[in-house]
């Protein structure tokens, strides 16, 4: 066990977890922040995406003890206008990838509030959706400020 200090969604947490524990595991199992999903657990699908200092990171392959910076999860983005945009455009089917999609999209629009379709496709290509909500995700990001 090893001490760990993490700032998550503006709140500071003191934890004691084994070295080698992933950030996703800490969020879900230690802190009960289950909005972050784990679908492959090896960094291939994007479902576990969180932000560290505003930059998208795959929390399933990020070691908790190596995190330097503020972590933002879907729980910290629940009032983001993108949430309404995803709901309104039907950019959600089974929803298992969706929190990760919103976290990635929030990082994109923070850096680039009016991304082009090409920029959206580039930024979002690491978030797999097996249900195929991609056209609606693109629409949600294109219209997030409406």
């Amino acid at each position: 066990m090893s001490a760990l200090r993490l700032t998550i969604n503006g709140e500071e947490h003191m934890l004691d977890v084994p070295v080698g524990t992933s950030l996703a595991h800490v969020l879900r199992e230690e802190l009960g922040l289950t909005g972050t999903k784990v679908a492959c657990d090896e960094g291939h699908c994007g479902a576990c995406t969180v932000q560290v200092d505003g930059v998208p990171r795959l929390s399933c392959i990020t070691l908790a003890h190596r995190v330097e910076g503020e972590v933002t999860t879907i729980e910290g983005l629940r009032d983001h206008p993108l949430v309404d945009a995803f709901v309104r455009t039907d950019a959600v089917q089974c929803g298992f990838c969706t929190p990760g999609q919103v976290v990635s999209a929030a990082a994109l629009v923070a850096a680039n509030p009016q991304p082009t379709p090409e920029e959206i496709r580039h930024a979002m290509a690491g978030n797999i959706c097996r249900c195929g909500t991609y056209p609606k995700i693109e629409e949600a990001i294109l219209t997030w400020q409406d």
Partner: protein
Amino acid sequence: MARLIRTEKEVEGRFEEVWIVVEEDPLEQWPAGPLAVVGRPAPRQDAPLRVRGEARYTADIKLPGMLHAAVLRSPHAHARVKRIDLAPALALPGVRAAIGPGEAHTFRVVERLSVQSLTAAGLEEEAGYAGAAVAAVAADTFAQARAGVEAIEVEWEELEAVLDPDEAVRRELLTDEPRRSERGDVERALAEADVVVEATYRTQSVLHNSLETHQAVCEWQGDTLHVYISTQFIWGVRQAIATTLGMPEDKVRVVCEFMGGGFGSKNSPDPHTFIAAELAKRTGRPVRCALTRREEHISAGNRNATIQRLRAGARSDGTIVALDGEFTNSVGWSGWSAGTEGPMRMLYDCENVRTVTYGAKLNTPPMKAFRAPGFVEGTFGLECLIDELAARLEIDPLELRRRNYANSNDGTPFSSKNLEACYRLAEPHWERRHEVRSRSDAVWKRGVGMASQIWYGGGGPPSYAWVRLGSHGRAAVITAMQDIGTGTRTAMAQIAAEELGLPLEHVEVVLGDSARGPYASISAGSSTLPSMGPAVRAAAADAKRQVLEIAAQRYDLEEHVLDIRDGMVVSSDGNLSTPLEEVVGVLDEAQILGKGARGPNPTGMSVLTFGVHVVEVAVDVETGEVVVERVAAIHDVGRIVNPLGASSQVEGGVIQGIGHTLSEERLLDPETGRVLTTSLDAYRMPTIADVPEIVCEFVDKPDEHLTNLGSKGLGEPPIVPIAAAIANAIRDATGAELHELPISREEMLRALREAEQRAREQEKRGAPAAV
């Protein structure tokens, strides 16, 4: 009055004769077109929960004291456990229990088709494929359980493995009896045909890859087993577990409020659930058994590969006179032989049709239903063959399809068929082909292709729903169905709101728990909406009748002059217009309870869905890269309840189909039978960057013979024709004939070389080269 009838039930294209109690369905269908709520786009009611990460999936269930299970799987394609020692695992820290072959129940009998593929459900001595479960460990953490699995000592006796489907058929190693059917005289018709085309098509094995892997949490409370499971069929899981464990069904409670995708792979409980139940029993603690992504790739099911040896004969006027097909489904160690021959038997009007279908039992991972099983594969073969025929006959592919239009299913009338209306809607998209081709250059060749769709999707009884309405004037639909991500929860709310005359936001749907509502349909075979929707409407109508009875007494009016519209109780003379909550406000704590059941399907009719896709592609003839640029997807599935959700279903099916056509393939090592593509890095699914422009259109005409709703299912139809439409577009662009999926760059380049060769030979013979 309830009636007991003997009827044919269809699930995923398979039929069985069953006794069913059906209730009369006296409600008349609503008029066609958008109504107050039904037929109008509605964002999903549960979308905020899912988008905000508040929806609780099976993956998020964490019960007090819960243990985690890990599974030992066979490294061999076919082997027997000679000796197994669980003791080293039990000695490790955190390990609470271990079980080996024979210690979790197996279920080998497919009792009912609606409880699908209930084979190989436990831990067995004989491992029939590399990845079959043979032992399991429960520990405080998953890492400890995994360490326990690694410590188990096993001595294997390797057995002969059969991996080649043709060899399996030769040796009669089959999962099902060969399915043979013939109408007319195929040999004679082929001999007399003006043109005969012949080709062998091969489709690959692909993985469902639901983002939530297969998983269950089991907990015993007294003699009741509580099962939290990611499933498409709450009631099927309940029945299968009760039957396997020899328990009364009421002692099994199955819960699935939200689930992260299924696509056909989650219709049955499977080994992980039985492992969790057994380990929970032994430890007295709740146990989670969740597959890792890599386990998902080796043991959670797949769309099996097929080999299709096809022939078609036609007269020079385009009349198809003979269709002949030999189909081999590479089923694997368990599963069933899907109806790959179905499209050949049903799509066209042809007097002479002969098919034989073999299900090869192989030492490969199990087949599971995957979004229109059989028809996706069979449509690729048939609809590519039809285009080859069109090319030989020099007839426009759309015209050839129209000339062979089937007006009955081999003599049985369709409950409704609007494929011709789909073709009409397709015309403007089809007309684009000249302009699309003209945008070709030396490297990028462009073309347009089409393919038709036929599939089931009519649903059926039994299915039930309750509607509860309180003094506040809001309604709850209660039924133990599941919403697997298709938006059926919202569609049910729309149907109830329409019938009750309430605004949509005044209706909620309670689902996902076998202890909290009546029996509901499986969410597979595009059946949720057509099975559940009519039951929900009937329940709402029952509640509405009671409201109007109360209103009639309260205002001293005749019931028949009263109605509810947009939350107001109104009289036909306009004198009464009162909010519903005022009318039922007198109820205080009393409640109005409506109940409804799904009525029967029309007797003596084929209930099927139809559609057509028109696809535009660009092919880089130097690298073999194929880009799908535009898809027009036109479907006839009866009444559309939620146009917004329906368009999402179509887009999702098209995108999954593009993956199936171009990039996805589960590869096996031909020597060992082990899966090589175990990660999402190796198994390539479409990303947002691969998505074309998708235009989605519906005929939106209620099926007047089907239930009080006239709706069919839409989950599967959009994935059926896409592969053939892409392949036909590639032929249009380049002249290359594709006979094999996926159309990888290597396959594309091979087909281009072959086409060049063909063109050269034709030139030598002095004939003009076909494009």
